[in-house]
Structures are given as C-alpha cells and as structure tokens.
C-alpha cells in the first residue's frame, strides 16, 4: 500500500498540505521535548542533559522496528522508499563540520526554527548563519565539485553494504540505545550534582 505518494495514492497539491502538517507535528515534538533550547541540546555533550540522545535514539529505534514490521505486513514497501545516497568522504567531512557547527551553535536546522518560534535570538542568528553557510558553499562550489561527488556508493542501505539483514541492525541499535539510556541516566545524576542550573 504505502508509501502513498510514490505509489500514486495521494496526488497533486495535497503534497504540500501534508508537508505542512507533518512539519507542524515535527516542530511540536521538537519544541515540546526541549529542543528549542540550545543549552538542552548541548547538554548531551557535557552529560548534564541527555535529551538529544534519548529523543533521537528512541525515535530511530521505534522507526526502525516499526518500518520493519510495517514492511512485513505489506503496509509500507521498503523497497520503494527513498534511501539517502551515500557519498562516503564528503559525508564524513560534512558531518565533522556539522559537529563543530553543532557545538558552536547549539542547534541543528530543525531545532533552530522552533527556537525562532519561541523567540530565541540565538535561533534566528543560527538560521541566518545557515543561510550564509549554504550561500558560501554554493558560491565556492566549483572549487570542490569533484570532492562533493567523490566516494559515491549509490543509494545503499546497511544491508547492501554489509550483507547483514536489516532486522539485525534494528536489534543492535535497540540494544545499544537501551543500554545507553540506562547508562546516561546514571551519568546525568552524577553530573547534575555539580552543575549550576541553567535558564531557558
């Protein structure tokens, strides 16, 4: 049955209404979980607030297992969904750059929009930075065009690369995530004793 739009169940401009609704749900979840606060987000790297890790990993394991079940039921055809293409080297480099950006800015793009919504000036500045960053990238694009397209592996999944069925990855991720949840709970308790409270 699904995915609905690629299978032609939903057509036309409903696309954008759906996009808006999904975005609203996304933004709501992000804000309600505390992602509109950069100090909440950055807490994951200093051990005083693991909300990012918890939300993120929970979402990934729920989505992974859910997709596998729904694929099995024939509700979502996993073969037909878009798989993010892999450009190995640019992706690694890009992620390192994003890592720096993450720690400096304390946001990622999605969370910065929600920060703007509740009136955070740093969120606005971060988004302006995003705009400038992409602008800078586009202007200098010819310089590293070759690098940008290097290391292309195609739209590969973990299974394509390793030959291990997707279910094992879902299982491994779940075990790692659950273990890290319990582990970080202890760390958080420990670190919070020493830290002064922060405002929102």
């Amino acid at each position, binding site marked *: 049955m699904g995915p609905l739009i690629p299978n032609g169940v939903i057509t036309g401009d409903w696309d954008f209404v759906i996009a808006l609704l999904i975005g609203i749900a996304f933004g709501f979840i992000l804000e309600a*979980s*505390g992602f509109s606060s950069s100090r*909440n987000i950055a807490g994951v790297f200093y051990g005083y*607030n693991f*909300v990012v890790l918890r939300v993120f990993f*929970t979402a990934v394991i*729920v989505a992974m297992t*859910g997709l596998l*079940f*729904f694929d*099995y*039921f*024939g*509700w979502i055809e996993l073969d037909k969904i878009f798989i993010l293409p892999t450009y190995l080297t640019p992706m690694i480099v890009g992620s390192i750059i994003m890592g720096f950006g993450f720690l400096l800015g304390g946001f990622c793009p999605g969370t910065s929009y929600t920060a703007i919504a509740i009136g955070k000036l740093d969120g606005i500045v971060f988004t302006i930075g995003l705009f400038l960053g992409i602008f800078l990238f586009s202007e200098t694009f010819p310089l590293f065009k070759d690098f940008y397209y290097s290391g292309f592996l195609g739209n590969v999944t973990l299974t394509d690369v390793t030959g291990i069925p997707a279910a094992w990855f879902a299982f491994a991720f779940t075990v790692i995530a659950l273990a890290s949840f319990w582990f970080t709970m202890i760390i958080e308790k420990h670190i*919070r004793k020493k*830290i002064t*409270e922060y405002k*929102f």
Partner: protein
Amino acid sequence: MHVHDLNPKKALATIIIFVIIIILGFVTLKRPKFIYKVSLQESIELLKDKNAYFYPWQLVDVINKVDNNIVLIDIRDIFSYGQGHIPGSENISAYDLTSKKYIEYLNRLNAEGKTVVLYGNDQLEANGPWMWFKQVGYENFKVLLGGYKYYLAHKDNLEETKSDKSYILEVPDFNFAEVANKGASIQSTTKNTKVPVIKRKKKKTVAAGGC
C-alpha cells in the same frame, strides 16, 4: 534539577498502542495461499526437464488403469469435457483450480506423491497452469504434450506415437529465412488486384537479423 517530565507513562502508553497496532497487523495479516517456491531461473531450468512432460503414449497405462499413480486432470470447461475427454480423466476447469475444494484435493494428490497430468485442448492451454503449479511448488505436476486434440487424432494407436514426434512443438516447420523470402513465388498465380492499403514504397527484403 529536572527540566523534563521524569515519568515516562505517556511514552509507555504510546508504545503499548504501537504494540497493539503491530499485533493487529499480525492478526489481519493474510498469509498468501500460494508463494513462489521456485525462483525464476530455476523455473526456466525446469522447462528443460524431459520428465516434467507427459507423452501421449504414456496415456495408455492410465486409460487401461495399469498405473494408479497418475491422475489426469482436464482443465477445459465442463462443456468441452462433456463432449469428450480422455477416459479416466477428471474435470477441474482452469478457473476452479485454486478454489478451496479442488486445491485441497490437488494438495492431497501432491502430498501423496501422485503424478498429476494437466491437459487442455492443446499443449498451450495447459502449459501456463502447469508452469504455475511448478513455480508454487507442486513438483509432481506434468503437462500432456499435444493435448486433447492430439489424443483424439491418435486415440486408437497411442502406442505407435512413440515414434511420432509431431506433438513436440517449437520445431520450425520451415526454413524461415528461405521461405520468408520466396513466399510470394509460391502464390504467383493468384490475382493481386486487391491489395490492401499499405505503404508499399517501404518494401524491401525481409529484414533478417533485425539489426
């Protein structure tokens, strides 16, 4: 100092709903009645297996009830069957092959290791269903070469058809390359006054080889 709600009861509730959805998924999941047990490439190989076919002369044993291990199934409709059929054959119209009643019967035959021979008017009629049964894992199914028509023409001398190979299809009856070019000369005496509207300027020798 906790800025987040500490009690995960809502998360638990949501996960439980999620689990219920998944359980519903399992409950409503329709197990397909048939699945392909033979891969595409394997089923191509199966087509080459001489033992997968049933030869007209082998019918003698069935008709004389010597071999009880073979079940003849006439897949034509009931009217054709009524007008004439191979003695000892049963009629399951192609449309009914997978109906509950008959598929249970066929499953039983297959489980008992009986050889099931499908036939239609000609080989072509039963060939598709036979291929299908092979692909969904009915190993003992065969198709009657020549079909009912061939049987009807040779029913009195089935034994002798061992030497006759006319029921083997896919043999070229002509030397195509030659005949296709000369086809017209054979018919040269007929009047060609009324030639249908065709764009004749395109004529050329047959494009042999395609490329």
